[in-house]
């Protein structure tokens, strides 16, 4: 059965090249549901027996003489739960998003195939092959944006990430002469450490950890939204899948600890995560382009996962995995919402948007719920994840990481309000746009569904990652469906929900007993001024350069931006290339001298050496 599923995805990828827009979307949607069914079937392995179709657990695909062998692992299954459900929703969304079928569906299906391959890879050859497949299929999706910075930065950074991972794989292969992931143990000598660090760096590029994130704002803000929803939601999780694999399943964290006796490098990973969360949040709320803002917010939220992996205690890692799960869904919803707004108004800049929420209530509701989860409002699952991370930071006494992490959490309110106010509320500058098409709204609400489930039962999430944690030999927290206990304190969602119900009674009482009259937009206090005198052209939009006061204070610190450092390196390379080109002077005489010189040198070398 599994081979049929994979074959179908490949065939669909090829068919959707030649088929019309609508049909391609339907095929893509149908095919992307298959792996979801497989996931549900494998759930019975890990304690959630939902359906029993007996889909094989492993498969090996012959290609060019060698065979790629895939098998489901607890960790793979958990990460698949984050990434695979995104695809049907994105296909449903793009059913009405695209005017003509110019190559979106085939490469998305290839990306789906390669993400399944990465998650189920049994040996490093398969892992690396599907990793490269993922990078070029996503590159071709970025390539559609026709923007120079996005295309070049994405291609260069993904090849850099691929080479770093390849270096790590090579060194590990040299140490224990086998590619099988199960039979690897990394010796804690200099080579082993270099391998682990290069692997983590390679994965960090794809999961936009701060110093290596330079490509993200360009790519997120230029390529089209449905793909970016997957890029931000799913692809960054593959980076963290790799990191978890190296750090915990292959016991990389232990190797690093034993090697660096005094300063544990995990702390550095946590510090990078914290900086990434903090700086990205500060930059995020200064952006005017909605997609750039969401890009930096995604970098910030992903920093939390790096903190969790950096601290490494069971509390921290389960918090990080929970945050990864939430981030996959709420970031996908936010980008899809941005896509829906752009689809209707054709604009991305917050200064040009405003009041879209009045005319697009469903998109606004989906964004509102996603933002609540992003900003970790207590009863949402976002809070449970962040709570675990904060607990672990305090438990591990990381006094530098904890405050920065908390401030980044509060900073999340700032840019989330900027999106809500700047785009959806405020002055209704688009009074006659219609709600996004049904398929788009349906896609957004499908992605919001999982967040709802874990809103009430965070305990289920801990059950789902139970086996994954054990495979990474990390202890699990004692919890039931509602209450999570840790050594420091406990968090009981039912208590919060019941208390909320009680607390809502007075509010509803006041709201219901006194009648109220809804007033139209122009009937607003404008210090007595009459809009009719200015024939209703008073601009009431206060959202462009919204945080100007602190922008002037914080702005200068982030002025150059990390991309300028990379550009400096690129210019350096170009200078060297100029020097190198000088060798080819263009005159045949010089070339003849080169040949004879070469002859003399190697003859001398042979005879005298």
């Amino acid at each position, binding site marked *: 059965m599994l081979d049929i599923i994979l074959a179908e995805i490949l065939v669909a990828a090829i068919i959707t090249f030649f088929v019309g827009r609508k049909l391609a979307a339907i095929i893509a949607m149908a095919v992307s549901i298959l792996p979801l069914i497989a996931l549900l079937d494998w759930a019975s392995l890990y304690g959630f027996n939902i359906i029993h179709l007996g889909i094989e657990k492993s498969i090996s695909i012959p290609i060019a003489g060698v065979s790629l062998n895939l098998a489901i692992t607890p960790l793979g299954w958990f990460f698949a739960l984050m990434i695979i459900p995104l695809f049907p929703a994105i296909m449903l969304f793009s059913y009405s998003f695209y005017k003509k079928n110019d190559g979106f569906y085939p490469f998305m299906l290839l990306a789906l195939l390669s993400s399944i391959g990465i998650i189920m890879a049994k040996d490093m050859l398969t892992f690396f092959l599907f990793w490269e497949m993922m990078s070029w299929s996503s590159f071709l999706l970025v390539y559609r944006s026709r923007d120079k910075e996005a295309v070049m930065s994405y291609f260069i950074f993904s090849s850099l990430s691929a080479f770093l991972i390849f270096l790590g794989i090579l060194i590990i292969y040299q140490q224990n002469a086998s590619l099988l992931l199960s039979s690897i143990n990394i010796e804690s000598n200099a080579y082993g450490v270099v391998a682990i660090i290069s692997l983590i760096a390679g994965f960090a590029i794809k999961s936009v950890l701060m110093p290596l994130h330079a490509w993200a704002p360009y790519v997120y803000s230029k390529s089209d939204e449905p793909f970016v929803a997957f890029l931000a939601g799913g692809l960054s999780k593959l980076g963290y899948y790799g990191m978890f694999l190296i750090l915990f399943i292959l016991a990389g964290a232990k190797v690093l600890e034993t090697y660096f006796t005094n300063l544990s490098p995990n702390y550095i990973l946590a510090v990078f995560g914290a900086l990434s969360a903090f700086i990205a949040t500060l930059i995020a709320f200064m952006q005017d382009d909605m997609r750039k803002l969401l890009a930096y917010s995604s970098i910030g939220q992903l920093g939390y996962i790096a903190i969790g992996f950096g601290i490494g205690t069971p509390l921290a890692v389960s918090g990080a995995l929970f945050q990864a799960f939430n981030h996959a869904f709420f970031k996908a919803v936010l980008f899809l919402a941005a896509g829906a707004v752009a689809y209707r108004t054709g604009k991305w800049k917050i200064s040009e948007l405003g009041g879209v929420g009045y005319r697009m209530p469903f998109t606004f509701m989906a964004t509102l719920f996603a933002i609540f989860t992003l900003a*970790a409002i207590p009863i949402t699952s976002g809070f449970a994840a962040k709570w675990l991370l904060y*607990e672990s930071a305090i438990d591990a006494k990381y006094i530098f990481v904890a405050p920065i992490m908390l401030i980044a959490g509060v900073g999340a309110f700032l840019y989330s309000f900027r999106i809500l106010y700047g785009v959806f509320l405020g002055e209704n500058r688009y009074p006659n746009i219609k709600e996004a098409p049904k398929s788009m709204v349906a896609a957004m609400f499908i992605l919001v569904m999982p967040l709802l489930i874990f809103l009430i039962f965070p305990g289920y999430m801990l059950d789902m990652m139970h086996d994954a944690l054990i495979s990474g030999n990390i202890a699990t927290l004692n919890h039931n469906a509602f209450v999570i206990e840790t050594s420091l304190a406990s968090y*009981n969602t039912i208590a919060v929900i019941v*208390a909320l119900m009680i*607390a809502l009674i007075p509010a509803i009482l006041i709201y219901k007993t006194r009648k109220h009259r809804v007033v139209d937009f122009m009937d607003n206090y404008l210090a007595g001024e009459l809009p009719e005198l200015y024939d209703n052209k008073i601009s009431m939009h206060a959202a462009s350069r919204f945080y100007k006061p602190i922008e002037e204070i914080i702005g200068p610190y982030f002025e150059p931006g990390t991309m300028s450092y990379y550009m400096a390196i690129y210019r350096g390379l170009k200078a060297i290339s100029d020097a190198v080109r000088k060798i080819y002077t263009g005159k045949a005489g010089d070339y003849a001298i080169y040949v004879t010189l070469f002859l003399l040198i190697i003859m001398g070398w042979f005879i005298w050496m």
Partner: protein
Amino acid sequence: MDVSAIMIKSAVVIAYAFIGTFIGLLFLGVGRKIVARVHNRVGPPFYQGFIDVAKLLSKKTNISHGWIFDLALLFSISGILLAFAFLPVGGIKLLSTDGDAFLVLYLLAIPALGFALGAGASGNPNAGIGVMRALVMMLSYELPFVITMIALMIYYDTTSIARIVELQSVNGISSWAIFIPPFMLAAAVADMALQGMLMEQPFDIPVAPHEIASGPMVEFGGKYLGTLMLYKAISIVVETTLFVDFFLGGGVIMHGGIVANIANFIVWFVLIFIVFTLSLLINTAFPRFRIEQAFTFYWKYEAILATVALIWVYWMVI
């Protein structure tokens, strides 16, 4: 957790909610009286808070700007009551064993976000600017407050406020956190942060009546403004109790039966009144800061002091 225990617990929570609102409104009136006295004025009667809320709730017409605008009303009351339910009040652990300091910190954010949405939906530019200032204020005073909170947590090795209160009241007043050297500094920093939280004079930038026509509250009238007044009242109690729980042992001086509870309640009440008056006196002494000054004040001076306290505690603990 059998049903009867839940019933008792929710009854206690509801009772304390009423007590909290009552004390809050009392503080509003008394607060204005204290400020008036400082201005050498007679000042309104102490029950002025009750009258204002009654007048607002009995308004005939209430203007609203759509369902998002009404969200502000729902969020504000429920958020602050929820936060109050998760705080140990005078030694009585309402629900604080089920949640911890981070939960309360984020519960305090719900009303702020509710206002922001309501003000945003009203579409008034003054409201937008007001909300921007409120969020920037939140960002700025959260940093020192969070650092002092972490210092406390590291020192007592727990994040649940109930535990902190227990550990502080081990042997009565002498074991309060404020008497431990680093926490004196931390208490001072937290008090300035409290000034920002309560939106008292030097930091009432978001609701500045002269510059931006009372900021987010521009379009709120009638029952909406009434709810906001209730929120303001309860938030005074909640934020001062938070400060008291962290640094003044939650007002717990005796352990034991009903008598101890009453004594603790009175001590708690006196303590929050002292803290509130302190912030009022600072209120009368200062003109309103600009938002940049407030931001740099918190992120430069306060943050440094707080980090010094944190490192000092960390050095003591390891």
